[in-house]
């Protein structure tokens, strides 16, 4: 099932070119109710609805450094602190945007806007302190995540051994276009991944290269406790702009179109918008990040 949030927060699933509406207030509620939600009887053409971020989870766990190739290329960036395997941090869920929403370039804060294609796992039920053997039963579905990052801010954060603000700025969290339920993904460890900017392939990889498997990862995060609908990202693959010899030729610019694709899950498309097109003000700036 392709579970969607559409228009003013309505919930449904996509069946061919139709959206079948479900009678629940949010996709989080859909999972909280064990996916056992009646239809409303309303059916709409997919072309006639506006898809929104498929879910706004209660908790959004980031995973750092989970693909070998990306981990190695990051050594070249010479962070002041190493990114150890298994490092976890939280995403600001208010920064979430959906398919075809704009990533608003905060020109007053960063000059190094980067992309990171990641598979996000949707947790289907509450639980904590479980091992990899049990973890699969907690995986309800998958969506595509583009971990937009201000590298210059991240570099400064890393001096203190943290990174949070650089990935948590408003609109920096595109997810979508929908949640594909786990039963429709026969092998989540064999999905081709590709990110394109204006049609040029920038990142290309496969979930078969995950260092920690998805059950290992879901088990690893479990001491923090899960609520139904929580998201876990699984780390990005090689090819981010920051690691290029000439990163400024690769950083995102206003009007760029980023397409993040994962086989069997879908393509998440977002445009980078000028600050002034989104806000009727001068770009926000802060002395702290000057």
């Amino acid at each position: 099932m392709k579970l969607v949030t559409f228009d003013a927060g309505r919930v449904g699933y996509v069946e061919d070119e139709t959206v079948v509406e479900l009678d629940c207030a949010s996709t989080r509620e859909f999972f909280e109710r064990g996916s056992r939600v009646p239809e409303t009887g309303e059916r709409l053409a997919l072309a006639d609805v506006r898809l929104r971020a498929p879910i706004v989870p209660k908790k959004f766990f980031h995973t750092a450094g989970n693909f070998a190739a990306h981990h190695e290329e990051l050594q070249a960036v010479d962070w002041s602190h190493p990114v150890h395997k298994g490092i976890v941090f939280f995403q600001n869920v208010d920064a979430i945007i959906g398919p075809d929403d704009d990533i608003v370039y905060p020109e007053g804060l960063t000059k190094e806007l980067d992309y990171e294609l990641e598979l996000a796992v949707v947790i289907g039920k509450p639980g904590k302190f479980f091992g990899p053997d049990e973890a699969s039963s907690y995986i309800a579905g998958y969506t595509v995540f583009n971990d937009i990052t201000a590298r210059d801010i991240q570099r400064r954060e890393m001096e203190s051994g943290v990174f949070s603000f650089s990935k948590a700025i408003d609109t920096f969290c595109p997810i979508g276009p929908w949640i594909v339920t786990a039963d429709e993904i026969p092998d989540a460890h064999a999905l081709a991944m590709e990110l394109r900017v204006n049609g040029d392939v920038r990142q290309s990889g496969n979930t078969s290269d995950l260092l920690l498997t998805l059950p290992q990862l879901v088990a690893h995060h479990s001491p923090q406790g899960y609520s139904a609908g929580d998201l876990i990202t699984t780390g990005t693959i090689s090819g981010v702009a920051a690691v290029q010899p000439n990163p400024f030729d690769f950083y995102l610019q206003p009007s760029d179109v980023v397409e993040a694709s994962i086989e069997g899950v879908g393509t998440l498309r977002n445009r980078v918008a000028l600050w002034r097109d989104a806000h009727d003000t001068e770009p926000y700036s802060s002395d702290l990040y000057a």
Partner: protein
Amino acid sequence: MKLGTLRGRAVLIDGDRALDVGPSVRAVLGNLTHLSRLTVDDNDPRFTVDELSAPVPDPRQVFAIALNYAPHAAEAGYTAPDQPLVFTKFPSCLTGPVSVVALPPGGHTDWEIEVVAVVGRGGRNIAEADAWAALAGVTLGQDLSERLTQLAGRPAQFSLGKSFAGFGPVGPWIVTPDELPDPDDIAFSSTLDGVPLQSGRTSDMIFSIPKLVAFLSSVCELYPGDLIFTGTPEGIGNRMDPPRFLEAGETLVSTAEGIGTITQRFL
């Protein structure tokens, strides 16, 4: 999967518990993929069969087949047809599985137990081999018939005589073909106040359910929730000697293997 209508809502049924899946069975029948992921659990509310409506209370089309069992064709005085004979039961006659039927005054009201095919995806020009995939499943019905009205015209027009109020009891639910050992061989039987009336197997039909689907869809587009009353075997009251019709106070109980039981009391 068992699917029915309870208090006006589409429900998935397991034992005596029902899970609400939406406002309309007809709306969900076109694609059962979503429902196949759902299971009824011990926290879902209980119901009793008499609370159920017809599994599809509002089909767009109701087809019914005459003389689809050779011994019945013979008892009715006809040779077996070489293509299906089709009439309709107007949908206003449909009721749930447990009902009370008022006998039309002065009429000769008769019983006809029939397995009823329920259209799922539907379509036009459906090949026999694809017929079960185009259906949602089967349920059980009685094609109650008031013979005087049915046979009044020259030539006779069956539909009105089979469409009096309450003349289409159906249910108790739709059973998907995967739940049946052989969907083309369903045994069924009826009793009146405990006395056996009719019994048969759908494997004895002249035109099997796939053949009926292919034939009907070559003319009419089949829509999700459409019903096909597939015909009754021998043993109707009109051909008893002497003819025997339903009387006030009698109770007709009809059962199909793998489907369930429907019960009609007459007034």
